[in-house]
């Protein structure tokens, strides 16, 4: 029976959750009673679109690989560095076609080209919504405002204008003003924004495969770009289908995040029939600890209303991308030797550019910390504002979604260097950045509705680039020998919940939850096999009084003899094609809240910078030989080898409330 997807509306959401839970329970009972019957499909998603069902439709779901964070020439910080790829070019690229990259020669031919070895399954172009309108007005002679002084400043000093505008909103962030040339109530700028916004929608529609082949799916989206005092509070907004608001709600329109959620509710869910959104925060590692603070924007503590609004609007967060990893702090609460991966040495953009503003990132800038704070807040408020599943993406500024290969990495424009007419010497991007990761969604099929439902229920994981397949189930009734059974997936769904879900209450007889996790290595491409797997870990967080404890367990594989020859980047030693484990939590306490997520690690491989430095024959140390632009090669803060990885969304547990809940 199809069950409506959980919407943004509190009442509807609760009803839907109850309905899903009830259906799952019935299915689980049925499966338990008749072990030989084929497992029943889980509740499906609702179709809101005119389209064919996919040929590959699978009730037990498949992993689809995509990129939910992509900038094109419509983003000012991309166009000033010479990016010419527009949304439709980005989608062409994601589907496996070749695109040109800046710089371009005199006849407009790009000096570099790029093509994905494997197309993506889905992508969303998420250009900065700020300046959609201002850019159009300031760049189109004849529009009112074009000759005004602000546009002149803006045309002449775009970066200055960018900082000025963000600067206006620093501090309270409550009085961002539109430029005067935008007209009464900013009407002229809003009208002008329709053109890029329309092109973004047309490009998404044009690239979306509505046939039953379902080769490629797209989402209309944009980035809401808040950075008070250069602390990053950026969020991507992804819409479920072609029903979207007339205009994106940008930081200039709405400088507070609570305002953003409210406006999305008013202008999308209630304003446009069929419109739904998810909001995905990213780069909490650059938020100066602000992304997951336990106070609201006005400084008051988070209350139940805020927690509810946030939980409904933001089911996912980006755990890793081009500008670093946001999983955990190296100096965090738990002993975690493998946390040190793609960390930035500063905690906001100010710290990147000014030594005086540079601070080492605190645990509060990371997702694992947020998950723990969420448990504490839920204890207090009855609602967890940080119930976040994980995805990763690129944040490319070249219009190249899914360009995550560490080999021949052309950069993602993170360095933001102004446009040039020749390929700059040296590393293709700032050494602390990386090629970014992918968002993986477990869905019945590669359609917008199915993928969006996966985002909503957090049945998602992020990878740092490779396409490993990771299943993760939690439940009290999971068989201990599930890895040796032939119906691992069906049993996982029948006897447990997948990543992103909530554990049921423990059986009356007591017992600890089991977690079944299975990872397949990235199959790679012909001639370039994926890297073997090294281990699977389970990261647990739980509440002890008013503190959060964390612990990391190796559950499959473990330390091995594998490493990589840094001079040739050839991997050495052994690894696994597949790892599987059923792990029982040895310290489960049915009275305390907890979360568990899985982390899958590959054997070590060369970091992108190591490959680039080798190609440039850079030598560090005594007899150093460093070509201009390659100074980063010898910066010892950045490792030469990395262990690429995947992070699953967590599974949560909350003890049943002692008192009977008053109303539901």
């Amino acid at each position, binding site marked *: 029976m199809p069950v409506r997807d959980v919407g943004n509306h509190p009442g509807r959401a609760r009803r839907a959750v109850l309905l899903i839970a009830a259906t799952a329970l019935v299915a689980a009972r049925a499966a338990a009673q008749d072990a030989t019957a084929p497992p029943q499909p889980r509740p499906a998603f609702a179709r809101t679109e005119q389209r064919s069902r996919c*040929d590959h439709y699978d009730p037990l779901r498949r992993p689809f690989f995509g990129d939910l964070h992509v900038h094109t020439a419509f983003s000012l910080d991309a166009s000033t560095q010479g990016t010419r790829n527009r949304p439709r070019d980005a989608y062409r690229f994601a589907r496996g076609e070749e695109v040109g990259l800046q710089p371009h020669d005199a006849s407009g031919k790009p000096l570099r080209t790029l093509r994905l070895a494997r197309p993506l399954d889905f992508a969303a172009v998420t250009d900065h919504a700020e300046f959609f309108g201002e850019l159009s007005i300031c760049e189109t002679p004849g529009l009112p405002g074009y000759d005004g002084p602000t546009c002149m400043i803006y045309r002449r000093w775009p970066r200055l204008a960018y900082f000025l505008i963000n600067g206006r909103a620093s501090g309270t962030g409550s009085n961002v003003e539109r430029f005067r040339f935008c007209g009464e109530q900013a009407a002229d700028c809003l009208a002008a924004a329709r053109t890029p916004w329309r092109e973004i929608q047309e490009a998404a529609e044009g690239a979306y495969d*509505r046939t039953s082949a379902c080769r490629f799916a797209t989402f209309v989206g944009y980035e809401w770009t808040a950075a008070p005092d250069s602390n990053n509070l950026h969020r991507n907004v992804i819409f479920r289908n072609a029903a979207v608001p007339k205009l994106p709600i940008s930081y200039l329109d709405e400088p507070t995040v609570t305002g953003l959620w409210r406006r999305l509710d008013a202008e999308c869910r209630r304003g446009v029939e069929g419109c739904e959104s998810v909001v995905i925060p990213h780069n909490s590692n650059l938020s100066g600890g602000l992304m997951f603070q336990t106070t609201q924007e006005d400084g008051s503590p988070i209350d139940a209303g805020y927690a509810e609004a946030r939980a409904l609007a933001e089911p996912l967060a980006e755990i890793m991308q081009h500008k670093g990893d946001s999983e955990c702090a190296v100096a965090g609460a738990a002993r975690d030797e493998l946390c040190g991966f793609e960390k930035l040495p500063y905690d906001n953009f100010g710290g990147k550019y000014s030594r005086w503003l540079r601070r080492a990132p605190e645990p509060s800038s990371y997702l694992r910390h947020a998950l723990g704070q969420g448990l504490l807040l839920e204890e207090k408020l009855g609602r967890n504002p940080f119930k976040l599943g994980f995805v990763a993406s690129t944040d490319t500024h070249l219009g190249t979604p899914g360009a995550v290969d560490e080999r021949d990495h052309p950069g993602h424009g993170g360095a933001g260097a102004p446009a040039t007419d020749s390929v700059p010497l040296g590393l293709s991007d700032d050494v602390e950045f990386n090629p970014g990761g992918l968002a993986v969604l477990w869905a019945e099929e590669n359609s917008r509705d199915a993928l969006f439902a996966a985002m909503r229920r957090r049945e998602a994981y992020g990878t740092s680039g490779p396409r490993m397949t990771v299943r993760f189930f939690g439940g009290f009734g999971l068989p201990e020998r599930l890895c040796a059974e032939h119906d691992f997936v069906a049993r996982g769904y029948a006897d447990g919940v997948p990543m992103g879900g909530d554990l049921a209450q423990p059986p009356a007889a007591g017992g600890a939850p089991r977690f079944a996790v299975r990872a397949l290595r990235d199959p790679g491409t012909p001639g370039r096999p994926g890297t073997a797997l090294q281990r699977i870990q389970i990261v647990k967080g739980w509440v002890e009084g008013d503190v959060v404890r964390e612990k990391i367990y190796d559950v499959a594989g473990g330390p091995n003899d594998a490493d990589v020859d840094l001079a040739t980047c050839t991997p050495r030693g052994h690894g696994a094609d597949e790892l599987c484990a059923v792990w029982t939590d040895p310290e489960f306490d049915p009275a305390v809240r907890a979360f568990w997520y899985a982390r899958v690690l590959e054997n070590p491989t060369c970091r992108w910078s190591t490959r680039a430095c080798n190609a440039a024959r850079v030598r560090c140390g005594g007899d150093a030989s460093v070509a201009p632009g390659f100074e980063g090669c010898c910066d010892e803060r950045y490792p030469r080898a990395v262990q690429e990885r995947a992070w699953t969304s967590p599974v949560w547990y909350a003890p049943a409330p002692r008192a009977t809940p008053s109303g539901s």
Partner: protein
Amino acid sequence: MRVARSPLARLLLGGALLVAGERALARRGGPEQPARETLRIAAAHVDAAVRAFVARTGRSPDERERAALVAGEVDEEILYREALARGLGAHDAVVQQRLVSNMAFVAGDEDARAGAAASDAGGALHRDALALGMEASDLVVRRRLVDRMRALLEGPAAAPEPSEQELEQAVAGERDRFVRPERVRVSQVLLRRAAAGGDAGAGRAAERLLAAGLPDPARHPDAVARAGDPSSLPTHLPLQGEHDLARLFGASFARAAVSLPVGRWSGPVASSHGAHLVWVHERVAAEPLPLDAVRGQVTELVRRRRARAALVRALDGLRARYEVVVEGGAPEGAG
């Protein structure tokens, strides 16, 4: 009288008068045609384009390709001049920033380079750049302006919603593209490398399993699902294309699987997971798709074509204003 007061009628009348007047003038020889401007394409320019072609393709262009390169150079130059004439250069954020950073480089001002445009708050560097004619000689500026001009010429034509007839025609003209690909329905049994000690071992294990009599998966789906090594991969797959199989099993497995015979076990077929035995239940040939299945893609295609056509038309009009001289070659004329 009522007719003459209607705005539409007045518009039509006015238009007719204009056209008639223009024709009358043209018949009389008309006013002096403005002298055609000379557009000179330097030999070095053509050589550079040829070198770029060689670098891209690894061979020299043939005569037709060479002509296309020259025509491309001419069009770029025309677009560039048109952009300057319309004043796009004076008002473009990217152009401004480029010029300022050029000037900072010339002036040896490292701080200004690093902060690029933001540090040129007085606009002095920008004014200097213009005074030096940098706008006309800089490649980045040039291609930015060409790009903007191209977008301006393409934009309006792409905007209106294509008609049903236009869409039908586009689909009919691209039968190869709007097609439902060939599909196969397969079952597969996996033998893992790790369990069998490498690729060869997995292959031998698969052959042993086959020799022991693996049943028909249509009649005995459960028995087949329990054969081979446990895995999270599905045993019985729905009817689907090669692309879908590649998502789960990798490209080389998918390519092999779609061409196996129907109704019997084949293999072992290798994938990154190990060795597979594969049964093809049925194969359905590729078939054309109706318009409704591909409406969005076709609409986009029509829009792109219109935009391209508008650009070509606009360029034709602009080209007529120039006498084109290609240095080191024959004059190309106006066409």
